[in-house]
């Protein structure tokens, strides 16, 4: 019987591409309502690990459950319960804000009425009333990002996967974006976020640091700093990379 407080659980999860092992036997648990940071340098295997969890990649070995469902056999069930925001923001640039919301709401099977209500609430929360009929391509990057995140949450998923959501935006917008993430976590949504910005790690409840496909450290930011005798996450990361 799966524990309802466990959102994600993996055991020896591995992905090999030919002779290259992208993700090497990772084992961890993510609790319900937690903000779980998945850190690592580019190419450390963060995105591959995430794609095995959200059904885009088939694992080579190991076990994993997401929202209590098995990633091998029950990916259809998983897909209904997760939201996903890819590195590229995944909005249609030639559609307006409203049309994007309507489309993504539609593919998750929301009713027309629900879409209308959610659109209104979302547009109000993001202060986008004036641009709701503007094409997404003319919005600033930070807005696109917030919109993309809100759309990933449109169907009230239990878990939301964010793949480097803050790439290429300024620190102020990044801070605003993290406020949205906190709001979601407070409503009970589990947030699984990958990043290579070490300062963002401080915002997470717990973090795991991946180096060359393995999880080298896992814990709260405070624990990790204490264990490595570091003043900030940057130092933790550098020490880990050097010890290797």
């Amino acid at each position, binding site marked *: 019987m799966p524990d309802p407080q466990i959102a994600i659980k993996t055991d020896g999860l591995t992905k090999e591409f030919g002779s290259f092992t992208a993700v090497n036997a990772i084992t961890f648990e993510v609790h319900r309502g937690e903000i779980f940071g998945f850190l690592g340098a580019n190419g450390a295997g963060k995105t591959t690990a995430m*794609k095995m969890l*959200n*059904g*885009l*990649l*088939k694992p080579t070995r190991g076990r994993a459950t997401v929202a209590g469902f098995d990633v091998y056999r029950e990916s*259809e069930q998983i*897909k*209904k319960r*997760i939201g*996903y*925001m*890819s*590195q*590229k*923001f*995944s*909005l*249609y*640039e*030639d*559609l307006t804000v409203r*049309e994007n919301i*309507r*489309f*993504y709401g*539609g*593919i*998750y*099977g929301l009713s027309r009425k629900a879409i209308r209500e959610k659109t209104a609430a979302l547009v109000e929360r993001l202060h986008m009333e004036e641009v709701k009929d503007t*094409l997404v391509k003319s919005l600033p990057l930070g807005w696109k990002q917030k919109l993309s995140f809100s759309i990933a949450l449109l169907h009230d998923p239990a878990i939301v*996967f964010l793949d480097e959501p803050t790439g290429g935006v300024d620190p102020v917008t990044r801070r605003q974006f993290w406020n949205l993430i906190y709001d979601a976590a407070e409503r009970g949504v589990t947030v699984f976020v990958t990043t290579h910005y070490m300062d963002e790690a401080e915002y997470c409840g717990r973090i795991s640091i991946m180096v060359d496909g393995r999880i080298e450290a896992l814990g709260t930011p405070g624990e990790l700093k204490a264990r490595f005798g570091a003043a900030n996450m940057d130092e933790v990361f550098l020490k880990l990379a050097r010890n290797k």
Partner: protein
Amino acid sequence: MKIFGIFIRKEFWHIFRDKRTLLILFGMPVVQVILFGFAITNEIKEAKIAILDKSHDHLTRQISNKLLSSGYFILYSQPESDNQLEKAFQEGKTKLAVVFEPEFAQRLNKDRHAGIQLIADATDPNTANMLIGYASAIIRNWQMDFLGNPKLPYTITPEVKMVYNPEMKSVFMFVPGVITIILMLVSAMMTSIAVTREKELGTMEVLLASPIKPFFIIVGKVIPYLVLSLFNASVILMLGTFLFGMPIEGNLLLLMAEVTLFIITSLALGIFISTRTSSQQTAMMISLMALMLPTIILSGFIFPVENMPLPLQVISNIIPAKWFIIIVKSIMLKGVGLGEILKETLILTGMAAFFIALSVKNFKIRLE
């Protein structure tokens, strides 16, 4: 079903908001038909000729008049010497020259033999051949009249009749060709670009991470292009019929069914291309190089398949367009029913099934 509607509407938004796509979708067919119909033509009409008459007698005048009254030729210049004739050719406007030797009528009466020289500008070999052919035929005709009843023991008179396209209008050849190319372009190239665009934007990942089945993603993606392709085919057929007087002798429903079959084959090809590439540019290059070129060159649209070297003839068999062009011509010009084009239809169906199976197999539920 509802999700389908949402998908299709979204796809139309994409299409109608992209000027380039719109231009290819709606500008191209019209421009191509009109270009091929009017500008590029194999017919000879009022070709400019020069007549160098070194004899100036009643017979050379008779022959000249006969040539000029045929409608195929107009007199452009009357050079006085070989030098002037050469100049006339170099100017480039003269396509054919007729040279009568001196004392033409006298020789014909005395020696029973006189010469006419036909000189054609063979920089364009097809036209030169045709001009020579027309001119020779007219001169032969005149000779028959001149001789009265030839005193030959036997005569064989070939009676030539051009069936299905008696006036040998080239537009009859181009309309099926243009339909084929446009359908290939819209169905295969545009869909492969549309799918790879979603891969590039990263939206494909999000779609695949959603509960929609990949099969529906693909079908939702191609239906708008199927509709637009059918629309395009109708526009081209109407232009062909009303503007160029091309007949549709056979059953219109059968024709549209075959068109749909070809569209499905092309769509499957487009999807197949998009499963193998991840950038729009590569998809476009592959579509152009691997689909458009063979379609234009090997399908029999411009160059007759029968005249190709054997290896190319063999290769042409795997080009769907070759079979489709045969089908369209047979239905439109010969008015045949399904029975006569069953073989071609089955081959095309087989190809469609093959490519659909291939792309379904290749379209990865889980992205690489």
